[in-house]
């Protein structure tokens, strides 16, 4: 299975009935494909809607209906539109249950770097800083390494998106919980070993009872 699909499938299991969820651009967007159809999850897009539906069929695109990545989307029954101040009021005010976003680096304290590589890549933080500070639960969904270079570190070296806000890290290899005393490895992909995970992680990992990661269809 594609690493991205493994991650998206596992993240989807974190969502509960009634949750308001914001999925970041890129990999996190895939999570929508794997949400348990038996529960009602409401997707927010910070550019101004709740009730994000699937990509429209070809020819059905509406230039006034996009997600925060600028892609054409649809609105589900029961969804609605609002302005940017309202949208970030929802985000900052703790009304978003779960936000899922990618990382350049994430560290033992739950700090996240995701928006800038000084002098190389300066796209801007967009809504990420508000989402990470405001959402009740912050899930980082990322490949375990960047072409072999660990993304999970003792301390982020890049400028932060937010300090001590991440709750859970989901990669194609492992599920790691961020607690007061550091990172706890709680699940591993059945095809890998704890040793392999430790080798690809640049931070101490605590573990006692590591369960197999659920990634079935």
């Amino acid at each position, binding site marked *: 299975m594609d690493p991205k699909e493994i991650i998206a499938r596992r993240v989807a299991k974190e969502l509960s009935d009634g949750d308001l969820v914001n999925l970041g651009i890129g990999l996190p967007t895939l999570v929508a494909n794997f949400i348990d159809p038996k529960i009602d999850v409401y997707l927010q897009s910070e550019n101004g809607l709740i009730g994000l539906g699937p990509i429209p069929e070809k020819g059905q695109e509406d230039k006034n209906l996009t997600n925060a990545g600028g892609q054409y989307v649809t609105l589900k029954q029961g969804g609605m539109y609002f302005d940017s*101040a309202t949208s970030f009021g929802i985000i900052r005010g703790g009304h978003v249950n779960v936000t899922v976003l990618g990382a350049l680096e994430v560290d033992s304290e739950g700090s996240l770097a995701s928006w800038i590589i000084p002098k190389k890549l300066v796209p801007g933080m*967009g809504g990420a*800083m508000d989402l990470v500070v405001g959402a009740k639960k912050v899930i980082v969904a990322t490949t375990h390494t960047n072409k072999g270079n660990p993304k999970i570190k003792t301390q982020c070296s890049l400028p932060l998106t937010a300090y001590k806000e991440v709750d859970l890290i989901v990669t194609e290899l492992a599920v790691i919980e961020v607690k007061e005393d550091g990172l706890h490895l709680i699940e591993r992909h059945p095809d890998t070993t704890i040793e392999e995970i430790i080798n690809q992680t640049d931070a101490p990992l605590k573990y006692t009872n590591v369960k197999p990661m659920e990634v079935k269809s």
Partner: protein
Amino acid sequence: MDKWITKKAFINLLKNHQSIMVGGFMTCGTPETLIDWVLESEVKDLTIICNDAGYPDQGVGKLIKARRVKKLIASHIGLNPYAGSQMSEDALDVTLVPQGTLAEQIRAHGAGLGGILTPTGRHTIVEEGKHVIRHNDQDYLLETAIGADLALIQIEACDRLGNAVYSKTARNFNPIMASAANTVVALTNHQRDSIDPECVVTPHIFIDYIVKEDTHGS
């Protein structure tokens, strides 16, 4: 009070060194026709306040590409390489602001507030040079209000007075910008006889001038 104006009257509102808020999110909800008229006007050294830098040939990106912008306040510039390159060569002064903070700073100006306390950006480079104020055991950054000389917004429809509604996610920054500039110009797709008083998003008192989309080039 006739608010309905043509291209010529619009161009008369423009000046060098103006600060201009432009609605839209990755150009969804950006009044492209008004930006084209700003380009035609030859004004320069503008300060642009917009969610993002647009694309090279869409939205405020067109003004940046044409080097008419001196300063840009935005949350994201990643889709317009001209913004990044002009920033590197010090031709464009870019202030990056978290999107929710930018929205509140604009709303604050429109609502007569001096600023707001937000938890966003604590312990990041956004915090640099800002007041940190503690309340209920939490630290907040004091972010001050942002206004502008001019706001250019895109609306879907309005009545004769200018009571405005938007279309879907093209709403985004448009309503708050309509409250926060000395002069507000709305580009509308449609004029309607009336707007349901329960559904008006931007009351007419916020809109100074209206341009109808099909008056293109008039």
